[in-house]
């Protein structure tokens, strides 16, 4: 692992960033070799060591979902879909780095809340509606709640968190609720 040469241009290294969060730039800079080799280990024949020519390499979702950090997570498919460019779960190196930097301990709370919202929004309509909540609950409890119970919990969640009274949770509602959650930062965290 240590002897192989990885070749990136300075520009490409610059390009690996997410929005304007400098703390995450620092994280990627520090953990880049480790993350890159984890990415490459998933499919060594697909991922070249030489990235100067901007190779268009996408690892299919099956490989991403088989990583030990993700394979037992009930939300792994949603996580991969949210962070992948094509929305199908097939991730480029960029997407891979984005994913693990947002889920690291260095990502700020509002960024994590934004991505958590997108993960729980199953139909990608920028609102967490009742059907999204039902799917979330079923993933959380492994489909063991009865339909009545699911319905009641969804009603209660919307009652508690919906501030603009439109029957569904917007990003602002979600962030407002996350502000009051003391352990959100520690639970929305994957160590790699």
């Amino acid at each position, binding site marked *: 692992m240590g002897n192989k040469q990885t070749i990136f241009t300075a520009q490409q290294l610059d390009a690996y960033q997410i929005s304007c969060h400098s703390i995450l730039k620092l994280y990627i800079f520090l953990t880049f070799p480790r993350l890159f080799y984890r990415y490459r280990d998933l499919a060594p024949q697909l991922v070249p060591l030489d990235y100067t020519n901007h190779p268009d390499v996408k690892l299919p979702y099956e490989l991403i979902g088989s990583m030990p950090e993700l394979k*037992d*997570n009930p939300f792994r498919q949603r996580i991969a879909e949210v962070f992948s460019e094509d929305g199908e779960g097939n991730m480029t190196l960029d997407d891979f780095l984005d994913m693990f930097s947002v*889920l690291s301990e260095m990502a700020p709370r509002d960024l994590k809340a934004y991505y958590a919202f997108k993960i729980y929004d199953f139909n990608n309509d920028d609102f967490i509606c009742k059907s999204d909540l039902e799917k979330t609950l079923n993933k959380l409890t492994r489909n063991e709640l009865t339909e009545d119970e699911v319905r009641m*919990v969804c009603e209660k969640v919307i009652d*508690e*968190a919906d501030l603009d009274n439109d029957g569904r949770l917007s990003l602002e509602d979600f962030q407002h*609720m996350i502000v009051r*959650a003391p352990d959100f930062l520690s*639970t929305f965290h994957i160590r790699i």
Partner: protein
Amino acid sequence: QVQQMQVPVVSSTESWNFGGGVQSYFLFLRFLVVLNFVSFLLIAAFVIIPSIVFRSVGSNLANSTPEDCMEYNPNPQGLEVFYNYFLDLLSGTGFMEYSYLFYGYYNNTMVEDRNFSYNIPLAYLFTAVFYFAFCLICIIAMGTAARVAVATGGSAVGNYSMIVFTGWDFGCLGDRATRLKQKNIHYRLQVDLEEESRNKRAAALTLCQKIVLYSLRIFMGFVAFGLIIGAFYGIFEATNFSQGILGLIIEYLPSIVITAGNFMVPLLCDQIALVERYSPSTTIIVALLAVFLRLVSLGVILFTLWSQITCEGNTSSGDCELCCWETRVGQEMYKLTLFDFLINIAVLVLVEFPRMLVDNWSNKLAQWLGRQEFVVPSNVLGLVYGQTVVWTGALFCPLLPLINTIKFFILFYSKKITLFNNCRPALKTFRSTTSTFFFLVVLLFGWGLATVVMVYSLAIHPSMGCGPFRFFPTMWSIVPTSFYNLSKTTQEFLFFIGSQAFSIPLFALSVVMCYFIALASVYGKSVALLRAQLKLQEGCDKKFLVKQIEELSRQLQISKHNAGVQD
């Protein structure tokens, strides 16, 4: 490869896997171990070591006319079989009775040197009193800390949305851990939903149904009460029966009956609770009742001992066998502690270890038996009971805190091993923020009982034949005696401090001050937390306002542009 459940330390691993109550239990047990060890150091420094050092030196404090029971010589005469040594070890008689373990061995020596004097009886008394005060302070300190956690812990608002959106730990690895976590969340949601539907149902009962429910409750209350009375009578008879008859089992009869009662009655209460379909929070009230039972059963033992000591009023009659009643009480407490410890180890080895083997080798049988749960309330009750016995007996058996330290230490590690190897997580989640506080409140009840016993012992007539208070009318009377040996100015100063005009306002003032300090610290932390939240809020609100302003200015520009176009 990250391994879960690897290192047996008190860490978040337990609360994550087994629920918050388990972590509180181990924290509570660790607190008790430290408390007992520090108490032992205290007692050793002020009573045991001076007794050992000054055993040969020093003179007796006072002599009075000989009375009955001046002769106290429990040492065995003649040859002893090895079997008898073992019996003596378990029941605190024979070679163990006349040793530093029990009150009867200590002398009422007072050493006076050129510029150093040490009064052993006074030291014994003050150490005992200070030991109780020290334990009280420790409990209150821990309780205040726990109370802070309760006050600033999560609020009940937003309960469901918290569970749904922040309940899942994304760092959870492994199939088994994931399933456990999912079961945990499932159960938490179910419990909350059930409690709410139960409240709705209770509010919607008709009058007839209410009457039936209440009469059922009253009937069950009578049944439980009757069982408790039966258990007490059994303990009373057993304690009376064990006097004056040889045999180890008879010696241990009070302990056996107490332990049997302690196992049976909570089981029955659980069944009763099932019949009535209590909510989990009512189960805590039932647990409190079980605490009450254990402590009162201890009280029954003390009562029977007391009736034997005072010989029902005829102290001077020849029937009274007890020459050294303090050692007798100390022996009973020693036996209770030892028996409790042996029972715990026996249950671990004989019940839980085979179940672990069964679980590992035969899945069918394991499914039929059901996997064990680590039940927090009954384990905590056991700890409180053990600590209360130690407090009651510490005045008469100075080495009892040391024995208890060792006992709790071994218990800590054996329970940990049991937890990680045998038990599945208890699906009933116990709110850990309130658990520690609840345990300490219960411990305070035990402390109260022990204090009553201690105060009573200080006031009655000590034995003539043994112990450091040999020739005093009461144990407390050594204080006035020594007091008058002090210099005049010291006496006047102490009189002033002790006088009502000074001490009562001081005491009231210090209680009020303590209360306000505790309140201030609780509010201080609340204020800090709210400030931090406000900052976050402000940030969010600022962004919201900025967005609104941008939106408005954009609209303004558009309308200006439109107006300009129209013009």
